[in-house]
Structures are given as C-alpha cells and as structure tokens.
C-alpha cells in the first residue's frame, strides 16, 4: 500500500472516496418512496445533478482531462453542463 501511495496523488484517492460517498448518498435520495409531487421532483433533480458532478470528477481526475489541452477540457466541461441541463429540463417536462 505504501508503494501505491507514493505512486498516485492523494487527490485521486480522495476523488474515489467522494464518488463512493456520492453514490451511497444519491441511493438514499432515490429510495425514498414516500416522496410525492415537488419533493419527488427535487429529489430526482438532485440525483441527476449529483450524477453529473460524479461524471465531471471521473473526467477531470481519472481521465486526466484536468491536465489536458484547454480545448479538450472545455469540450468535456461543455458536455457535462449541456447534457446535465438538458436531462433536467426533459425530466421536468420543459
């Protein structure tokens, strides 16, 4: 384990832990069947936003897009923002 720690930035391990916690957190949000109406919509929008925060973390830190040439990084950031907003809009029936 010490060998691995010296190899990989601590940041990557922190990102992995954040991804795991976000997964378990959104599972809680998504399993609350008692929710109705607006509460249910708020919970689902939160689930979608959390998913795209996770997507961005995977792209920037695992795919190393954080250190990629600016155009590629921007295309990825644009993808995350546009797809997230479009899906939230479609879900809410806008």
């Amino acid at each position, binding site marked *: 384990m010490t060998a691995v720690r010296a190899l990989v930035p601590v940041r990557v391990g922190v990102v*992995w832990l954040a*991804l795991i916690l976000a997964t378990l957190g959104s599972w809680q*949000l998504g399993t609350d069947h008692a929710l109705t109406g607006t509460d249910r919509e708020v919970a689902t929008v939160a689930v979608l936003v959390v998913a795209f925060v996770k997507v961005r973390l995977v792209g920037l830190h695992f*795919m190393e897009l954080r250190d990629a*040439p600016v155009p590629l990084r921007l295309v990825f950031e644009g993808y995350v923002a546009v797809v997230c907003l479009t899906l939230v809009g479609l879900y809410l029936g806008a």
Partner: protein
Amino acid sequence: MGTTTAQAEASVARPRRERRLPGEEGTWVFILGDLTVFAVMFGVFLYYRGQDPELFRSSQEQMRQGFGVVNTLLLLTSSLFVVVGVHAVRAQRHVLAQRMFLLALGCGLAFAGVKYFEYTDKLDHGFKPATNDFWMYYFTLTGVHLFHVVVGMGMLGFLSVLARREELNDRMTALLEGGACFWHMVDLLWIVLFALLYLAR
C-alpha cells in the same frame, strides 16, 4: 541576476502543470462520439418517460437498486485500479501495473456477473423488453452499455500485457492511456444510467 531571481520565484510559486493529451486525438474523437450517442439515448429515454411518467415510475419501482449500487461501486473501484496501473507503468513498476489492470478486469467480470443475475431476476418476474417502454429502454440501454464493458475488458486484458513491456514507445503509451480513458468512459456512462434507470422517480 534577474534570471536567477525569476527562476527562484518560479520554483517557489505553484509548479505549473504541463498540459498534455491523454491518448491520441483519434481516441478522443471516438470517446466524444460515443459520449454524444449515449447523451442522445439518455435524452430519448427521458423524453418518452415524460410522455407517460406514471407507467415509467411504476415500472421503476420494480428495479432492485442494490444491483445498480453494487455495479456502480465495482466500476468506480475498477477505475481507481486503472489510474494506479497507468501511474505504475509510468514509474516502471511493471508487475504492480499488470496486477492493477487484472484487478480492474476482475471488477468488470463481477459487473457482468451482477448484470447476469439482474437480467435473470427481471425475466423471472416477467419483465421483458416487450413488456412496456420502460423495460424496452432498460434492456436496450444496459445492453449497449454491457457491450462496452465487454470491449473494455478486452482492452484491460491487452493493457495488462502491455504493462509488462520494459519500454513503451510513444504509440504504446498512447494506446495505454487511450485504453484507460475508454474504461473510465464505461464507468462514467454507468454513473448516468444508474441515476436515470435506478434512482429517478
């Protein structure tokens, strides 16, 4: 004198990260294309969900979220193994690198195993692609994704062989990073599918 001061300041200041492309341009054309195709499928799914929210909601109540959670954790962890593997190759730690890619491959196999149990469970309960629109999208989206998992596992097998080479030329390094990014994409797409199919209400 001026230069020395500038150099000293530069070394004290935050080290500027060197920007570089992981993999080759072609890999990114492919990955961005694939991401776009999936984005369209996500949108189509939510569009049709909007046409009959009650049907989709009642069908989604039948999803066993545990399957989705376990599979998300498996892919996130496999992605971490791949990151460690790539760093290990860069540090000439060939044996460790190979072990990491094989562990990631093992996570991929476990993911496919969970999917097998999940599909069997769904079919046993009478949920087939023809049952209704939700199940049609469920089987199509997860099926297309599973195909990517299988291709990705082949790639991880290849990376585990590549990892043992003493020297990697530029092309092989690009293959290694491109293959790693493909696997991260498989992980990334599942994150959205998990939210859309298992968690959305």
